[in-house]
């Protein structure tokens, strides 16, 4: 195998050879070698090759700007003193930078406590969710049993049915669960599960967490794409299906596990609907951010009603605080988002 450096070298040499050949051909006269159609085709390719990169750059640059615009705006506002918000002479770069907004918002959001709380909730739920969804996906991908199509229909239903339909009955279930279960789960403190992390962990543990249907679907597609011979060899050696799954399938599916895990973390991080339904004082970052303008008005403006314009610096600071952890994760792991999806079998 050639190394990457060598490959680059080969590519260079190949291109140089092609160029040299074209030059020779031109000197003798192209008509001798190519039909008129081919000449026309080559010319067209050349023009496209010259013009297209410019267009591509313009399009991508413009669209990247559209995407990055709110983030740049966020950065510009979060460090800007509030008085300078109304200064017409400032568009992007404020006259002086301040950390005051960040500090205020940190205090209002109780960010240290909230962050730790959210991270624990996220990690536990995501790990549980990925584990159980992968097992379920594997079951659907590789085993034949009665009613499989019907059960898979339910998985598809789980993707389509909006969570808003089931929220209220679920709330009742969490609020009035079997008493023994609640006592055990909350260590005897309460007969309700509302406000406990269990409202997130329990569904995740049973492969019914946020967007679980989608994850089961992805895992099924992925496991179906792996060659069957992998397991047959293990079965011949007398391994049980569960052992085969743990020892053979999981190592082969590492990439797809990572991708799904990342997605799971992102969706749990961003979720405010489910958490706002089941938590009243168990705070997550998304929930805090959702209520930020009311809490800001309460703490900074003595409950006066304020327009968004007056508190925009704090809002943007809050945004910045809450997306920073996930953004950092994204910067380090973004290649897995792409490569993982490519290999996760979703491609087929």
């Amino acid at each position, binding site marked *: 195998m050639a190394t990457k450096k060598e490959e680059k070298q080969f590519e260079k040499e190949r291109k140089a050879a092609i160029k040299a050949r074209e030059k020779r051909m031109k000197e003798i006269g192209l008509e001798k070698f190519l039909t008129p159609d081919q000449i026309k085709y080559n010319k*067209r390719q050349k023009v496209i090759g010259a013009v297209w990169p410019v267009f591509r750059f313009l399009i*991508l640059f413009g*669209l*990247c700007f*559209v*995407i*990055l*615009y*709110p*983030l740049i*705006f966020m950065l510009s506002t979060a460090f800007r003193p509030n008085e300078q918000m109304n200064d017409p002479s400032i568009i992007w770069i404020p006259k002086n930078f301040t950390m005051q907004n960040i500090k205020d918002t940190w205090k209002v959001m109780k960010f240290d406590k909230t962050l730790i709380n959210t991270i624990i909730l996220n990690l536990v739920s995501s790990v549980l969710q990925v584990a*159980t969804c992968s*097992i379920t996906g594997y*079951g*659907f991908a590789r*085993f*034949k*049993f009665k009613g*499989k199509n019907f*059960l898979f229909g*339910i998985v598809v239903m*789980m993707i*389509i*049915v*909006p969570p*808003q*339909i*089931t929220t*209220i*009955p679920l709330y*009742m*279930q969490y609020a009035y669960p079997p008493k023994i279960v609640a006592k055990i789960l909350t260590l005897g403190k309460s007969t309700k599960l509302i406000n406990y992390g269990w409202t997130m962990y329990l569904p995740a*543990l*049973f*492969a*019914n967490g946020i967007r679980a249907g989608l994850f089961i679907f992805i895992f099924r597609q992925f496991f179906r794409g792996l060659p069957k011979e992998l397991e047959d060899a293990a079965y011949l050696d007398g391994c049980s*299906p*569960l052992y085969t799954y743990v020892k053979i399938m999981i190592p082969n599916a590492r990439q797809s596990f990572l991708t799904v895990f990342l997605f799971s973390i*992102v*969706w749990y991080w*961003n979720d405010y*609907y489910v958490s706002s339904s089941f938590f009243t004082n168990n705070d997550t970052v*998304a929930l805090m*951010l*959702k209520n930020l303008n009311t809490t800001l008005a309460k703490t900074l403006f003595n409950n006066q009603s304020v*327009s*968004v*314009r007056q508190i*925009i610096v704090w*809002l943007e600071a809050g*945004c910045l605080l*809450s997306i920073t952890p*996930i953004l950092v994760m994204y910067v380090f792991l973004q*290649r897995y*988002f*792409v490569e993982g*999806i*490519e290999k996760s079998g*979703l*491609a087929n």
Partner: protein
Amino acid sequence: MSKEKTKAVQTSENASPAKQKKHVLSYEKRKGLYGYGFIGLWAIGTIYFFIAPLIMSLIYSFNETEVKVGGMGMKWIGMKNYVNAFRKDQDYTLALVDMLKNTALRTPLIIIFSIFIALVLNQKFKGRTFARAVFFLPVIIATGPVMDIINGNMSTGGYSGGSEQFSTMFEANLVDQLLNFLGIYNISDKLSNIINSLTTDIFNLVWNSGIQILLILAALQGISPASKEAAQMEGATSWEFFWKITLPTISPMILACVVYTVVDSFVDPGNKVMTIVLNKSTNWQHGYSAAMAWAYFAIIGVCLGIIVAILNKVIYYEVE
């Protein structure tokens, strides 16, 4: 008598191969049981966390509900909630029609845009990694509450966030000026309206198509470079290659994207119908809200069914 005999013969005939294959069958059966084992956890969870609440909310929708200590008080009123939603509620039907129109308009736009961007991002050029990273950024941000602040949804009056400010940059005059510059004056109001709505919507378009781009890009990776080379040898232009090879190959993924886009726009808690449903539910009218949600869900189901049925006819499935 004879009937019984034939029956007996049949059963014995049926039984004998079963006896021969006994070992195979039991193995298959055992594997089937393992299958149940693998999905068992999910099945239990689904009954408790999905099916039961679903049925419960269906029951709510036929009742007048009242929240009490220790449970939900219910009074059977039949279809009244549904009738009320469509007959008496002025906002609901309007919001529903609006929603359907919006989705019908936006879905094709998002799909075409994502295909285009995915094609571009699939080419080799400098800075591709960066461009990809930027285009997938909405995937991690757009589902969260940050989007609300960015969109300026938090307050109806006063200052708004990025989206509003951004769209003013593309305000009507700019398009008109561009057309004027090109020597086109007042071709028609409709056309300039369409152009306007497109340009003002570009922010939402880009921010809502992260996942779709990701999916289509993944599908594009599945096209072997050999086919591209072969097409070039035959003298196919990129345009022909796109229509004859690329599009059929990625068509199953396009279906997935269409379904995802439609579901996503229907389920989004920010859309009008969802807002009404959630408002009713926060006003303690759970039965009424459940009826609205179920009617809405039925409509989504029908729409999706129609879309999938139509697209399935066009889609090209590779025979394995």
